C-alpha cells in the first residue's frame, strides 16, 4: 500500500473579506523624533537645522511625530521673533527661525507635541503661548507612547 502523496495546503480563501496583503500606509506615523537640544548655531546653521532635516525625514519615513522637550519647547512659542543681526556693515536676516520651521512642519502634516515640564520651566504653560496645533503632552504620556512607535530618535 502506498501512502497517497500529501496534498498541497489549501489555497487561502479568496473571499472579499480576506485582509489586504499589502495594507496601505499606517494611519499614524511610525517614528517619533524628539528634539531636546535647542539653539545649535543660528549663524552657522541658518536654514540647515534639525527641523529642516525633520521635514525630509517626514517625507522619507512615511510620516513622523515630533516631541519638543526641555528648552526646545520654546521653538513653538507663539510670540517669539528672530531679530536681524548686524555684523560689520551687513544685516543678517537669515538666521535659524525655529518657529518658522515648526509652522512648515505643521503645514506638512507633522504632529508636533510640547512636553509639559519644559513648558512650565520656560513659562509657556499659560493660555495662548504655543503656536496653534502644537499640543502639550505630559512627560508620562510622552514616555508611554514610545512603545507605540517603530522608531524613536533624537534630532
Amino acid at each position, binding site marked *: 500500500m502506498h501512502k497517497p502523496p500529501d496534498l498541497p495546503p489549501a489555497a487561502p480563501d479568496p473571499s472579499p473579506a480576506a485582509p489586504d496583503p499589502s495594507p496601505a500606509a499606517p494611519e499614524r506615523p511610525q517614528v517619533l523624533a524628539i528634539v531636546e537640544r535647542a539653539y545649535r548655531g543660528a549663524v552657522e546653521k541658518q536654514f540647515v537645522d534639525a527641523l529642516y532635516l525633520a521635514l525630509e525625514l517626514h517625507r522619507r519615513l512615511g510620516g513622523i511625530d515630533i516631541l519638543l522637550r526641555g528648552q526646545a519647547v520654546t521653538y513653538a512659542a507663539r510670540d517669539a521673533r528672530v531679530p536681524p543681526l548686524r555684523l560689520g556693515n551687513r544685516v*543678517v536676516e537669515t538666521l535659524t527661525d525655529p518657529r518658522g520651521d515648526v509652522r512648515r512642519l505643521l503645514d506638512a502634516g507633522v504632529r508636533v507635541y510640547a512636553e509639559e515640564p519644559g513648558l512650565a520651566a520656560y513659562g509657556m504653560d499659560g493660555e495662548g503661548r504655543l503656536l496653534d496645533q502644537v499640543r502639550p503632552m505630559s512627560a508620562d504620556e510622552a514616555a508611554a507612547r514610545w512603545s507605540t512607535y517603530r522608531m524613536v530618535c533624537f534630532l
Partner: protein
Amino acid sequence: MGRPVPHTDVMVILMGAPHESDQTTSVLRLLQAMLERGGRVQVWTCGYATHLTRQALGAAKQRNIASWTTSYPSTATLVQDLLAAFPDQLYWYGCQFCSDDRGVHDHVPEVILRRPSSFAANSAATGKTLMVGVI
C-alpha cells in the same frame, strides 16, 4: 622676531565648536557691540572654532531647496565682513596647531595664523581676556 601684535582692549579666545550651540552667534554679537563702541578686539580661535574661517565654506552656504534664491552667508564671509568694517579695531588670529590638527589649511587670507608659542605675545597685548568654550 615674531610679528608684532597690535594692542587691543579685549582678547576673545574662542574655543567652542560651531554648530553645537549659539555660542558663535553670541560671540559675533559681542564683537559687533564692542567694535561699534570703538573698542579694539582680537579673536584667537582654537579647536573646531578654527573651522569658522575656512575658505572651503565658500562665500555662501549651500542652496536651500525651500528658498532657492535666498543667499545665506558663510561664517567665513561674516568674519571677513567684520574685519572689513573695522579694519583698525579687529584682528582675527587662528591657532596653527589646532588648524593643523583639524585639517584647516585654507583660512581666508585675513586670518593671521599663530603658533601656540606665540600665544603669550597676544595675551600680553590686551587689557582683558575672555575665554569662551572648551576645546
